[in-house]
């Protein structure tokens, strides 16, 4: 079988960000294939959130490069990366608490153009199951619903790459099932990069997994490969 080598959607080379003596991200070479669901796992403090902050532009690296579909975006500011199709949903829910649910999502929709804001906003809300709550002030939603609102804002950007930072934290088991189905429905149009601690979810959902430890990549592979990896077991899975 001839392997089709697709050019990566995102590719980093030697990506590095140290905070004083702390090597949060330390020379990471990483690539994302278009249309995959890629999970980023690792112990607390392994550098996962810092790494995706570099991808989304919330932080700039000290050295190394980031390419999006071949284009160098290493120094591009965050808002310009969003317009190029990299959407980031926050680990700690970051919504507009005093605006309505509708306005929260409409802000994401209208950043891509002024046409059809109402229709597209309602569609994004329906996709995460928040239809009917659009008039409510966002801060009055339950925590789980705020997570879904955060997700709807990411979806409404219609991104090429959706970065989800611990999206299921605080969701009920029933909501997690819905979340899985939702993420599966996004690919292959959208590539998903997922930081997640829930291993059952990761093993079930991800097509590939990268393990970070002390700011470096410990292993990359399919869920089965990661489960069998000795180094990963020692560092993280605790088997």
């Amino acid at each position: 079988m001839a392997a089709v080598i697709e050019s990566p959607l995102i590719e980093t080379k030697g990506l590095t960000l140290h905070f004083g003596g702390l090597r949060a991200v330390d020379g990471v070479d990483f690539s994302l294939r278009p249309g995959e669901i890629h999970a980023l796992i690792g112990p607390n403090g392994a550098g996962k959130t810092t790494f995706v902050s570099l991808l989304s532009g919330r932080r700039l690296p000290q050295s190394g490069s980031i390419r999006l579909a071949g284009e160098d975006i290493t120094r591009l500011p965050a808002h310009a990366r969003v317009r190029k199709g990299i959407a980031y949903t926050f680990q700690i829910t970051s919504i507009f608490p005093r605006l309505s649910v509708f306005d929260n999502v409409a802000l994401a929709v209208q950043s891509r153009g002024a046409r059809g804001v109402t229709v597209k906003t309602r569609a994004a809300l329906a996709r995460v199951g928040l239809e009917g709550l659009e008039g409510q002030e966002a801060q009055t939603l339950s925590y789980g619903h705020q997570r879904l609102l955060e997700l709807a804002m990411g979806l409404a950007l219609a991104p090429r790459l959706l970065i989800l930072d611990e999206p299921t934290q605080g969701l009920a088991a029933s909501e997690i099932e819905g979340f899985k189905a939702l993420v599966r429905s996004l690919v292959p149009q959208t590539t998903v990069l997922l930081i997640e601690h829930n291993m059952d979810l990761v093993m079930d959902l991800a097509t590939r997994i990268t393990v970070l430890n002390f700011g470096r990549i410990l292993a990359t592979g399919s869920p089965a490969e990661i489960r069998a990896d000795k180094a990963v077991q020692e560092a993280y899975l605790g088997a």
Partner: protein
Amino acid sequence: MTGGGARIWALHAAVLVVVFAAQYWLSPYHATNLARIMVLAVFAMGYNLAFGYTGLLSLGHALLLAAGMYAASIPAQLWGWTAGPALIAGIAAGGLMAGAVGLLALRTAGVSFMIVTLMFAQAGFLTILYFAPVTGGDDGFALPAASRTILGFSLATDTPRFLAAFGLFASGLLASLALVRSSFGRTMVAMRENEERSRMLGYNPFTVKLAALVISGLYAGGAGAAWALLFGYAGASFASIQYSILPMLYVLLGGAGTVLGPFLGAVLMFYLIEFASDLTSAYLFIVGLALVILVLFAPKGILGTIRERWARWLP
């Protein structure tokens, strides 16, 4: 910000009708006061767009007011411009000055932004004093009567003056309402509420805030020009710190981030100052007391409180 469109427009139209009709039942003295209040309210509406909606706490809006005032009154004085072109020059000068200040000051935020805008305004105030031969310095100068005409009507007479102030006020109010109900209005509020999230939705905070500041400057410039043209005087005192604080007081009293708040705040503060200065020469003491009470019991201002408790649809 969505829905309730007809009710919202009807409310604002009703306010405009009442204000317009007030000239027929108010005494000439109070009608002239109302004309002054309307011009000050335009200034405050501009301040509200920057502060109330976008979250930009400027302490330098006197500079924008003065830019409009002098851009209108110096050409009127030197070259005999009439009110129409002078007003346009004033509006443009307010916007340009806001753009120039914003390009530098918006590199900062929060307290630093307050200090930088304050410094710019003080520099502007001193510049006006320095060029006293042209600006009149502290004494200012009276505008020539020939310049204070629009479409052949003299703005020194009561009815045309009231109508001109009303025209500016009504345009400012309706433009402000349309703006905050537009998608750009939603973006302005997003900056105020959560700038980092806005950035991660693809908005460049710098350009959004700069645009809001320039719009605010257009209002301030228009108000400065109108003050000079309607009341016949331009002077450095309008560039002093007092005129940076006043619009903030109006907005806080009426309700920051409400469309009608600046006007309501201007009316109440104008008459509070007048009432207090009848009682005592230390009238600022009474004004201060009123503000302390306001901050303690209604920190969102009058319309902000009404919106929170009874009328969530209020823009």
